[in-house]
């Protein structure tokens, strides 16, 4: 069983469209994240949710809206897609409820978004 799974793995779409990427983890973790890896291969945090509550929201355009229906899911919805949104988006999760930050994230395989 995949621990952190993202769908779709590949997404090709036109500028201006709205799309969603889904993420689910079956590890029992309480914190989930979205990271973006751009063309320069730089992995950058976008959002973080702890127990369905938003705890990190980096300077990401309002067109990006995360939604966490429960602890095991963190979906990413993107409105009005732009060329610069083309990237690989990684979902990740971690267990932080003990208050001990081991920093160990478990990543999904990534979703490659191409905006034409």
């Amino acid at each position, binding site marked *: 069983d995949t621990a*952190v799974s993202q769908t779709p793995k590949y997404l090709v779409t036109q500028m201006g469209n709205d799309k969603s990427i889904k993420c689910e983890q079956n590890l029992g973790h309480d*914190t989930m*994240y979205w*990271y973006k890896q751009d063309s*320069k*291969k*730089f*992995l*950058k*945090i976008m959002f*973080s949710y*702890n127990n369905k509550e938003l*705890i*990190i929201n980096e300077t990401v355009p309002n067109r990006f809206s995360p939604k966490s229906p429960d602890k095991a899911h963190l979906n990413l919805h993107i409105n009005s897609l732009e060329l610069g949104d083309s990237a690989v988006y*990684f979902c*990740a999760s*971690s267990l*932080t409820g003990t208050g001990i*930050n*081991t*920093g*160990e*994230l*478990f*990543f*999904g*395989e*990534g979703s490659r978004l191409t905006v034409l």
Partner: protein
Amino acid sequence: DQQVKQNSPSLSVQEGRISILNCDYTNSMFDYFLWYKKYPAEGPTFLISISSIKDKNEDGRFTVFLNKSAKHLSLHIVPSQPGDSAVYFCAASAPNSGYALNFGKGTSLLVTP
């Protein structure tokens, strides 16, 4: 503003020799450092970590060294194996950062037979 830097985009090492991957950071608040390994078309996977209260952590063939005064850490792999060929990301976190990791750009390691 990139707070974690990996200045070598690539490294090639012969099988059996030592691989040394370097990482520098600028934020003195970082107190936990990690290395992740990434194969193509896969997500990064955790490899080894070190707390700022230590200067060395070892796990099998992998050792991470931390030099806080120089804000530098390194990952040593010995002996290197062809299966170690991957991109290695250095990451760091600070207290009260919401558990987010700051990643470097990665170093692509190629271990040749």
